[in-house]
């Protein structure tokens, strides 16, 4: 080989190596160039000073994280943000939104329709966009704007420990499979308290799959499985635990659960306050939230026991929205 060729090869090798290292290693300086992920740094606009907005959230991990992300993003843009997270269940949160106690909170499209607008679970469109459009229309009538929906959805899943799924559940992969098991009604299913009365939760399972398992009411999702207090559990599809090998998901083959994408519902008067740029910021920070990203963020809170505020802050920094 000529000397020039060797030099070129060496340079190429160095380039490939550098690219490899940058891509696979963690990057503290925010997003690299290219890809869907290079985030624009949120600039603090002095015109936003003094404009106050209250962000709320419901009472579980993902909601805390989302609330913190939206709140911290608006803070970075220079707004005065008050946080009223952990309001309670969707009924309480919705009342807080319509009464003005909070200016905005993230809600799931399917939940909005079934819980606030009297749509029967079976009547909710299966298409995420159709569902979102319906939500937007219903909210608009209440002087609330439903911002663009997220890509990921957080729907209910039934999960079981891997050993249980292979053993007692005889390898069942779908809910219908489980419902057909001879001892199906003796199985114990754990779920959050109001699941027992929700048509998009236990009641739906009872009716659609003709399966009446014993219900264990608890706030924890995976501990009842770990401690063998329940065979199955209602979990969220974005749970960090589902990325582990310990649990298996049982598929909802009859499509009981409607789409559950997140849409930040914001009061129109507040939307006017933050303006188009504010709206842009909100919709920008939720862009990178894929299922895996949400699982990772949830893991940091539920498994690593970090605080949602910290996790949201790290998310914004790691993706380059804030420094």
């Amino acid at each position, binding site marked *: 080989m000529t000397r020039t060729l060797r030099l070129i090869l060496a340079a190429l090798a160095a380039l490939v190596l550098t690219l490899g290292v940058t*891509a*696979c290693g*963690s*990057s503290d300086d*925010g*997003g*690299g160039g*290219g*890809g*869907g*992920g*290079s*985030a624009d740094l949120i600039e603090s606009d002095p015109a936003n000073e003094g404009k106050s907005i209250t962000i709320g959230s419901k009472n579980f991990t993902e909601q805390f994280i989302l609330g913190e992300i939206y709140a911290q993003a608006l803070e970075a843009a220079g707004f005065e943000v008050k946080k009223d997270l952990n309001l309670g269940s969707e009924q309480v949160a919705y009342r807080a939104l319509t009464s003005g106690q909070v200016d905005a909170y993230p809600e799931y499209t399917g939940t909005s329709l079934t819980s606030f607008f009297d749509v029967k679970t079976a009547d909710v469109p299966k298409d995420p966009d159709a569902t979102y459009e319906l939500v937007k229309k219903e909210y608009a009538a209440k002087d609330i704007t439903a911002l663009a929906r997220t890509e990921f959805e957080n729907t209910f899943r039934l999960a079981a420990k891997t050993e249980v799924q292979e053993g007692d559940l005889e390898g069942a992969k779908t809910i219908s499979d489980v419902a057909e098991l001879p001892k199906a009604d003796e199985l114990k299913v754990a779920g959050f308290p109001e699941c027992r009365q929700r048509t998009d939760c236990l009641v739906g399972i009872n009716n659609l799959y003709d399966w009446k398992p014993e219900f264990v009411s608890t*706030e*924890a999702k995976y*501990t009842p499985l770990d401690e063998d207090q329940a065979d199955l559990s209602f979990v969220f599809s974005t749970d*960090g635990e589902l*990325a*582990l*090998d310990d649990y298996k998901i049982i598929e909802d083959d009859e499509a009981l659960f409607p789409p559950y994408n997140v849409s930040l519902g914001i009061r129109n008067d507040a939307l006017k306050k933050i303006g188009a740029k504010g709206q842009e910021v909100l919709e920008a920070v939720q862009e*990178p939230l*894929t299922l*895996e*990203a949400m699982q*990772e963020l949830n*893991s940091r809170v539920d*498994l*690593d*026991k970090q*605080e949602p505020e910290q996790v949201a802050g790290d*998310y914004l920094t*790691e*993706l*380059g929205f804030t420094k």
Partner: protein
Amino acid sequence: MFLLAQQGLEMPDRNEGAAGCVQNDGFCPSWIFDNFDRYVDPFLQHIVLTVVPVAIGFAISFGLAVLAHRRQWLTGPITGVTGFLYTIPSLAFFFLLQPLTGRGYLTAIIALTCYTLLIIFRNVTTGLGGVPMEARDAARGMGLTDRQLLWRVELPLALPEILAGLRIATTTTVGLAALAFFAGAGGLGAELDADYYFKSNVVVAGGLAVLLAAAFDLIILGVQRAMTPWQRARAT
């Protein structure tokens, strides 16, 4: 995975290696050490949720007890009302007040204050009632007015009982304040509620509450010992 890594979100593999203490909801001293500061604010809130209701409750009950001391017929009704308030389960009380006073400190403090009333009222009344007749006669013999009698003779002699009541009220309030999060008032109970299954969390939040109650108990006991030196001679 590659795309996200490029975007900057770190995604460790939590399957690899033995799942850590924290992931298994265990009791993890190192995690406690690192994260202790998240309990500081709730702890301070809990102090407020204890001291304020007890202080207000004491002021009210003391006044009522002195009043009832003069007009004995009041003792029954006051005991009845404060007793009724005491019997309402705290959770229900927090719930019931919410439409009137909303969520937050006000609701919690009103409810917690009501619970101290019976305890303190009863102890002050019993303390005053337990003053020996001889002491009272002697004082009157010396020409003391009713007011002087109360402040210079009866109350000092009733002090042990009053302070005992204060101790009971304070430790009880620490316990009840753990439920204040239900009314949106934070406190150590909120930390407990955040994760019942994480042993480290339960031990720290619960342990801090117990320590707080013990600390208050000892402080008031110390005050009692200091203010009633004549008792020390008889103490076992």
